[in-house]
């Protein structure tokens, strides 16, 4: 009798442990995806093409450049206020690291296999360095001075930033033009002049999207569903690509540390 009870208890324990193992496995998967934030995951969705990768790297370069220029200006302002050299050295060290990172991003080849990994890791580094600088500044200035400093550097205009901004804009238009061609291809129509008008800036992206929506919405129910499914499939593929990139990075970088 005792043996039967022991077997029963063991059986129950086995069922409990196996269900816990299944739940734990699912949790692990979620946690692994959580290493790269959802925003970054969305951003790398377009990096399966060299143009998409180029756009993301340029955007990261621009964001970091703005922070480098602002950090530079902040240090100059603090020097003018005759702050301790020791405090300023810490800020200058962070600034140097940001400049080094800028060079790394600048020399990353968008068409290389590692461009996605480079983007994710360098974005994470840029965020960390920015936070480090911000924390160091908060130790030096009170709230009132911080507000005054923010106002002073807000209006900062740099020709270099403006040029990168213009270039990114033109690359995004190129990317969207390619997408318009894809969409017209799915629909089975082509309006070359309309697409070129978008590329030249004569038509806004909103208008171009509206035009496509109108064409699809005027289709028969079945045709409309078919086109919708194909567009949805493309978007799902993009998300799967992003997840595959992240999985690949996990496999490559196990033990190297985490990014976010």
């Amino acid at each position, binding site marked *: *009798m005792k043996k*039967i009870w022991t077997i*029963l208890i063991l*059986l*129950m324990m086995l*069922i409990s442990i196996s*269900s816990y193992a299944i739940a734990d496995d699912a949790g692990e998967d979620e946690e692994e995806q959580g290493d790269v934030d959802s*925003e970054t995951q969305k*951003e790398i969705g*377009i990096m399966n093409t060299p143009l998409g990768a180029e*756009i*993301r790297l340029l*955007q*990261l370069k*621009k*964001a*970091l450049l703005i*922070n480098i220029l*602002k*950090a530079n200006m*902040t240090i100059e302002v603090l020097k003018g206020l005759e702050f301790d050299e020791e405090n300023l050295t810490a800020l200058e060290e962070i600034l140097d690291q940001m400049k080094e990172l800028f060079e790394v991003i600048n020399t990353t080849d968008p068409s290389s296999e590692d461009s996605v990994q480079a983007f994710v890791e360098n*974005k994470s580094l*840029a*965020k960390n360095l*920015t*936070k480090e*600088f*911000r924390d160091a*500044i908060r130790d030096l200035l009170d709230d009132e001075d*911080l507000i005054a*400093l*923010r106002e002073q*550097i807000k209006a900062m205009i740099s020709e270099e930033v403006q040029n990168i901004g213009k270039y990114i*804009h033109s690359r*995004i*238009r190129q*990317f*969207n033009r390619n*997408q318009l061609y*894809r*969409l017209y291809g799915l629909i089975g129509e082509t309006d070359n002049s309309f697409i070129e008008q978008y590329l030249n800036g004569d038509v806004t*992206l909103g208008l171009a*999207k509206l035009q*496509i*929506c109108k064409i*699809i*919405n005027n289709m028969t*129910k*079945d045709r*409309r*569903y078919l086109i*919708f*499914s194909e*567009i*949805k499939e*493309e*978007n799902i593929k*993009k998300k799967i690509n992003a997840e595959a990139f992240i999985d690949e990075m996990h496999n490559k970088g196990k033990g190297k540390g985490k990014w976010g």
Partner: protein
Amino acid sequence: MNKKIISIFFLLILMVSIAFAYIYFNQGETNQNQYDSSGKNVNDTDVANEIDDMFIEEDDEIEIGEIV
């Protein structure tokens, strides 16, 4: 008497296990069926949202945080 109780207990465990297994393996299929049955009714917003996802907004930027 004891044998009966043990048999009932065993049966109970077996039934609960089968129920859990059935629910677990049919969950995906149920979701798929729900998608398929509602799929053909695509509204304007669904189309617009999917089209939006295909493009990059021209003012799109990457956020790394403010320096100050």
